[in-house]
């Protein structure tokens, strides 16, 4: 019941918000209120589901076609219960924050409704036990992200970023759709249980499985902003901060992790798909962390850090062997949801205070109030993976899982493990840099002061507590996690210390990025020119092909048609001259042609 409510309620809330759009209080009641109710419901569902076996939840009745069964089921398990709760909870908190952030926006109702729909789509993907439902949630999220990123559509930056997000993810979705279709056709069903049963059975064709799952991985790389599709996410910062927080933390980019987690029993058997995911995630993980370090805009720093952290989840899923299972990646998803939401909302608050997200403008901005300082510290510590914070717990589990993968005979475990360890150092360094930038004294005088509204303070407090204590979710027994070892804990702490101290030493003289990578900053700000590559290698050729197609359509294909008409008219004119009769219509000539065809065919057939 709760599983179904969690999808239906936000859809209804979105509809209500659109109906009440002229009444701000009504919209708030609909969206924020529903969000809170959903968080409570999801909590109840999570607690009730702990320790129980996975079970299937029926929805609207499915359809059985002659060649395809579509059961349209949801499912719950303890792990899904926890993820659902975190998604619903984070979404509720972000809805509350948005009510403050966009209080004076004339299109707040549309925004809140879209966020609500977006949450519904994500909860559908999380709880889906059917490839069709997964695809529905997946595509609806893509469209909602277009609306959210482009919310401030009066600016060209937002319009371009929104279009880019939709088109890049939609291009990758060609793979996703075809992969899901391939999986469904093999199993003659879209039900997750049928699909897994067929594709994990010994008679499943190995190459088809590898192909279908690799195609699914391509779609995941797009939606999760992984190399080479990653560049849409930093641009998406043009959207309002709550939209960024929602897209980055609990939904959209994390959806790929959920899908691959659900498909894991088949995925782990498809070696090429594992390597594709592992290599792409490895490149993204380290590359995005380095780019994050050198960003001159703090919101973009968070964007690249999301790209890198999602790569960590996907890398874990690619690397872990079958006997360990993919839960470590899923646990990092919810850990990241908590601390990334916290970081976005703190930075969003500080940016409102100083009026910019540039690192130079935000320098020392957190000195004004202790709430943001504490929140920022906790969020960044979790991001860096400091033990005991939720991010530390999850990163530890990912490292353990990758190690298990590295010592197992198959999969990209070694590559992923090495890259994870390098990434830990860089992540600690850029987290430290962000903290130094926002908290150290600004030469230009005292920071701007502004009283934090109670709603923002509550939101930050809730997320800070959750980020600090979220690690206990690992103890609920909902996840099958690799056993932790003191050796890896010690290695992680050592690596984090290295990263922190390098950044800290440089931070004594100013912004660590300028000290350590000053020359790299302009390139990092442009994302190494990947946007240019998209334009030159994809957009331009496609538009050129479009122009050619249009030309061919009118000048070549249509020319045959015109030629027919012309010939007919010529014949007609000839007939006119021959007989002094009425000018025959072009049609007569053509029909005569048809009669001729009839005659020829008739002779051929009956002879």
């Amino acid at each position: 019941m709760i599983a179904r409510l969690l999808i239906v309620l936000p859809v209804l809330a979105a509809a209500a918000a659109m109906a009440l759009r002229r009444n701000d209080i009504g919209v708030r009641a609909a969206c924020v209120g529903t969000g809170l109710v959903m968080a409570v419901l999801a909590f109840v569902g999570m607690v009730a589901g702990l320790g129980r076996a996975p079970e299937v939840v029926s929805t609207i009745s499915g359809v059985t076609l002659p060649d395809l069964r579509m059961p349209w089921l949801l499912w719950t398990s303890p792990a899904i219960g926890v993820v659902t709760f975190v998604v619903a909870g984070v979404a509720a908190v972000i809805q509350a924050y948005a009510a403050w952030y966009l209080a004076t926006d004339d299109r707040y109702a549309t925004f809140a409704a879209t966020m609500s729909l977006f949450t519904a789509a994500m909860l559908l993907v999380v709880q889906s036990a059917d490839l069709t439902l997964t695809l529905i949630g997946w595509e609806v999220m893509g469209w909602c992200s277009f609306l959210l990123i482009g919310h401030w559509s009066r600016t060209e930056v937002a319009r371009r970023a929104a279009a880019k997000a939709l088109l890049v993810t939609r291009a990758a979705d060609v793979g996703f759709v075809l992969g899901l279709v391939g999986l469904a056709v093999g199993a003659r069903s879209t039900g997750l249980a049928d699909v897994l049963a067929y594709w994990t059975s010994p008679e499943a064709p190995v190459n088809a499985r590898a192909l279908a799952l690799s195609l699914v991985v391509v779609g995941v790389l797009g939606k999760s902003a992984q190399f080479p599709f990653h560049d849409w996410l930093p641009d998406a910062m043009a959207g309002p901060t709550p939209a960024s927080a929602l897209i980055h933390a609990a939904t959209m980019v994390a959806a790929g992790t959920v899908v691959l987690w659900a498909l894991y029993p088949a995925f782990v058997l498809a070696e090429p798909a594992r390597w594709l995911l592992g290599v792409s995630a490895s490149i993204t993980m380290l590359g995005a962390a380095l780019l994050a370090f050198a960003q001159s805009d703090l919101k973009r720093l968070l964007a690249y850090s999301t790209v890198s952290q999602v790569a960590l989840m996907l890398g874990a899923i690619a690397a872990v062997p079958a006997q360990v299972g993919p839960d470590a990646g899923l646990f990092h998803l919810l850990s990241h949801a908590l601390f990334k939401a916290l970081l976005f909302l703190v930075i969003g608050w500080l940016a409102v205070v100083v009026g910019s997200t540039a690192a130079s403008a935000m320098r020392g901005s957190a000195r004004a109030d202790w709430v943001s300082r504490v929140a920022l510290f906790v969020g960044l510590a979790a991001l860096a993976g400091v033990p005991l914070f939720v991010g530390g717990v999850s990163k530890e589990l990912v490292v353990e899982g990758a190690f298990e993968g590295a010592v197992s005979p198959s999969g990209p475990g070694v590559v992923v493990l090495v890259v994870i360890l390098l990434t830990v150092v860089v992540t600690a360094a850029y987290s430290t840099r962000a903290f130094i930038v926002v908290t150290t004294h600004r030469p230009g005088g005292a920071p701007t002061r502004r009283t934090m509204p109670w709603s923002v303070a509550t939101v930050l407090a809730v997320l800070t507590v959750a980020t600090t204590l979220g690690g206990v979710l690992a103890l609920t027994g909902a996840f099958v996690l690799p056993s932790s070892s003191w050796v890896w804990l010690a290695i992680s702490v050592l690596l984090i210390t290295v990263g922190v101290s390098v950044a800290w030493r440089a931070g004594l003289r100013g912004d660590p990025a300028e000290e350590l990578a000053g020359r790299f900053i302009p390139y990092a700000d442009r994302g190494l020119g990947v946007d240019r590559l998209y334009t030159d290698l994809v957009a331009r050729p496609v538009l050129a092909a479009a122009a050619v197609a249009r030309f061919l359509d009118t000048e070549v294909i249509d020319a045959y048609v015109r030629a027919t008409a012309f010939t007919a008219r010529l014949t007609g004119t000839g007939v006119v001259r021959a007989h002094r009769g009425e000018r025959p219509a072009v049609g007569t000539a053509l029909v005569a042609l048809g009669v001729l065809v009839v005659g020829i065919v008739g002779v051929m057939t009956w002879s």
Partner: protein
Amino acid sequence: MVLSAALALPAMVGALLVVFGSALGARPSRWVAGAAAVGSAGLLWAGLVRGEVVDVLWVPDLGLRFALRADGYSVPFVLLTSLVLILVVAHTAYEVPSGGSAGGYLGCVLLVGSGALTAFLAGDMVLFFLAFEVVLIPMWVLIGRWGDPHDLAARRDAASRFLLYTAVGSTLMLVGILLLAHRRGSTGFAVDAVQGTGPRAVLIVLLLVLGLAIKLPVFPLHTWLPAAHTIAPTGGSVLLAAVLLKLGSYGLIRLPVLSAPEAFAVIAPWLGLAGGVGVVWGGLVCLAESDLKRLIAYSSVAHMGFVALAVSTGSQLGIQAAIYSSIAHGLIASLLFILVGGLKHRWGSASLTVAREPLREVSPRLGAILVLGLTASMGLPGLAGFWGELLTLVAAWSPAPGRPRSVFVASAIIAAVGAALAAAYVVRVLRLVWLGDAVAGQRGRPIVRVDIRGVEWAVTAVLVAGIVWLGVYPYVLLDLTVVAPAGPAVAP
């Protein structure tokens, strides 16, 4: 009897309006035409619910029968045609195109509807052909007389091209039908299919497919469509998209696929490939097209590519996908043409190269409905377009036996790429007409602030409801089409 009356009512009223319409005035004509459309829909409903079958010997010497019957494949098309007919008549309360009397216009609309309904209900191939032909004449008049008044030469060209092109197609189809009738010894639909893949069977299927592919239209036989769609008045475009193209998809299912399945399998790969290429082709042209109405027309080419691919798979699932795509496209294209017609009415042209006030800022309700129509067109889940495209891909991934699977998988991949192009051109259109800078400070642009309301709003609201309903509640249409067509309803 009820079914015959349902067809005769709009035909007779239509003929009377064509003859006496100019004497009647716009408003009375509208009421008369509306009564005929609604009355016909009611009679059809009654006939369908009672499962009525008409079968009268018509031309005894030739063995021709006036046979009407409905099954799961024809009912969706019949209902779509009835609905669209009512909406097109209602829409004249918003705008009557210039070029002649309202009565004449409505008369032609009713004649098109009556002919199309006859074709969908026909139980006899010759009756199907005749109805198919009868539709062309009033449609030709609609385009040639009530078409875009701006360019007389283009109007004449579009109208005559439409007529000639599709007449050539019908001629080919007629030959195919006659050969098929000769082979089967009956002109009825519901007799045993032609077996085997002999050269004659393949020739029959080739003629039928060619003729119907022009109607659908399938790439590269599509060039009559953009001209006709662009020039036709709003109601004419709607009828073209929702009714005439559907004659093509219905005919493809009814004639080659069901009448000669084995021979159809021989040429099906080519049809499937043409369908897949058509999706990409239509999408590409939409990326470069500078007239919004033409752009929507080319998006129809892309959608009909999906239908061609679905039909060519020859499987039950493929047929269902084709019907779903066709019905969805009928609703979506109707909505888009009504919206674009309204925009053209407001703007004076549908050119995308003119900078205009963004719809989101000046007429938000019209903008929102346009967004819904375009996202449905790109196959967003929750809206009608999604199921047809998804099921088409599934069907193409596992075509009916006797077909080269690799060709169909390749076609599916091409079509999936084309579906991504749909997102690109939708975003392009949205950025050109929906999104933009705030109104303040924009000077020198024509200010059009008339939002959608009244009849225009009601008509689009019905279509929106249909699109959402088919998107979130696919059972009815899938259940309707899941059953194979009923056994011989007409004695051979």
